[in-house]
């Protein structure tokens, strides 16, 4: 029986074949992304209308003669509330899109019925998740570039900081944002219900990480929670880099924390993926949904 089972595979997996598989996943995801014209709406319209609700509320809170704005300036040290909100909501949108796309990538394959057959191919399985992250990150960079131009020309935001430091924050934030996405993907494929989990995670980011307000506004216990969330440091770092002239010293602590969180979340993401993969092979339930 044993000898019958141990048939020799004709596949010869190696580094290059894994790279090919990874590239195939990247190409597939990109083709699916550009196939539906609604991505244009996502790129051009959402960055404007999502922060607009908060910006207009802040405008109302400022008052006719700027009474409220003076208080805001005392609290945050910034006069530019539009840029302040735009940067915060942008980071939230990034994490939200990663949760839906990368976090839901395996689940989507499960729903389409292609996950089980892909799982049987002699490839490095983690490349399914890594591959889906690449087109997502490219589209996110496009979204950030378009959004920045829209904020400058439509909302008249003055980004007085440095473009390169802002990009550095984005770069250092990648492991945290996508590590959470990987962990999320493994969790969702086991629990089968993605919507409720996305609502929960993005809700936590929305309430605790200060997308429209300084963390100092939160009660003490909420501030303690926000310190454990990498998105708090991404938002703070991005705001400091893009809106102020504080330079690298202003974002040094945020970068350190993001590196630590990045390592932690990548490890959690990878471990959860391996655990899910083993469990799926044992139970044989990977194709079920």
């Amino acid at each position, binding site marked *: 029986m044993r000898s019958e089972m141990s048939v020799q595979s004709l596949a010869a997996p190696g580094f290059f074949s894994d790279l090919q598989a990874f590239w195939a996943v990247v190409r597939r995801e990109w083709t699916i992304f550009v196939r539906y014209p*609604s991505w244009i*709406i996502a790129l051009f*319209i959402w960055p404007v*209308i*999502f922060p*607009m*609700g*908060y910006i*207009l*509320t*802040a*405008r*109302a*809170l*400022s*008052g*006719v*003669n*700027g*009474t*409220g*704005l003076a*208080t*805001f300036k005392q*609290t*945050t040290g910034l006069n530019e509330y539009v840029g302040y*909100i735009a940067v915060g909501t942008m980071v939230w949108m990034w994490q939200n899109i990663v949760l839906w796309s990368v976090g839901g990538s395996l689940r989507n394959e499960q729903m389409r019925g292609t996950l089980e057959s892909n799982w049987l191919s002699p490839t490095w399985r983690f490349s399914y998740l890594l591959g889906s992250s690449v087109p997502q990150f490219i589209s996110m960079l496009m979204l950030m570039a378009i959004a920045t131009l829209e904020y400058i020309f439509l909302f008249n935001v003055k980004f007085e900081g440095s473009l390169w430091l802002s990009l550095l924050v984005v770069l250092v934030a990648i492991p945290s944002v996508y590590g959470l996405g990987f962990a999320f993907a493994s969790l969702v494929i086991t629990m089968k*219900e993605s*919507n*409720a989990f996305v*609502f929960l995670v993005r*809700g936590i980011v*929305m*309430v605790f990480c*200060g*997308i*429209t*307000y*300084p963390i100092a*506004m*939160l009660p003490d216990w909420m501030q303690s929670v926000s310190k454990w969330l990498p998105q708090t440091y991404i938002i703070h770092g991005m705001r400091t880099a893009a809106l102020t002239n504080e330079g690298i010293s202003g974002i040094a602590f945020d970068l350190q924390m993001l590196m630590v969180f990045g390592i932690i979340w990548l490890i959690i993401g990878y471990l959860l993926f391996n655990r899910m993969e083993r469990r799926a092979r044992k139970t044989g339930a990977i194709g079920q949904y």
Partner: protein
Amino acid sequence: MHSTFARLIANYREYLMQVESLSQPTFASHMRALYSLSRKDWKQYWRYPLNAVSSVFQPLIWIAPIYFMGLAFSVNGKAIGFSQYSGTTDFMSFILLGTVLESFINAVFWGMGYALKNDMDSGVMESNWLTPIPRLLILVGHSVTNLVVTLITAMGMLLFGGLIFGFNASGDVLKAFIPIIPMMIGLYGFGFAFAAVVMLMREANTLVDVSSFLVQIFSGANFPVNALPRFLLPVALILPLTYGLDAVRSQLIGTTTILPFAGEIVLLVVFMVVMLWIGISAFRSLERRVRLLGTLGQH
């Protein structure tokens, strides 16, 4: 020439289809159909209790950043700047009330179109459409459960929102219902037209997401519309919902209104009549087109 021929074919088909039905629809049978539709939706909704919990807390999560942002603009919890536009320093009661009313608007505005899309996806649309029930009644039936569920979740939102953020309404609750009635009936008109568009397009998500977000912004769910920049103000002023939200708030939390209260009620009644007429006409014409195309069962 070609269009005349097509019309002749269509008329001939219609003639062939005019067979006598064995059903005997009465008012009572219509009410039974309405009850069955509502009961089906009710059972389906409570089958996923996590959704119910989510519909109470999701809107609260969305307004939480506004609450903390409002604190950054306030002194001792009073938003003086906000009161210059709205007439109240209690910005959170203003926003919470707007969010609750917006959830009712969404239930009627988009709920019927979404329900039809769900029927299409689950493959029951065509068979439901063949039953001898007025089609508008099917739409109304879909909205009944939606409204009851929204009422329950709105109470949950006010309760939890009040506990978390504080909610102070000291006005006349009965008088606040005067603008709600024409506003909601008028919204049914829009809902009928939107449902017909969904039947024709067979896609609802992107359309609904973007439009509901824009309507929410411009009708002033989260801020007084007179705080809008001059060039955006006309957009808010042509939306009848703006006056509905404004009138309800003035009665419950004593905000200053854009127009006198009576003037806003007259506008809402005109909106109700016009929207019902447009909605029913649009639905009848588009529904006929979908039947001619034969795409009712496709999705």
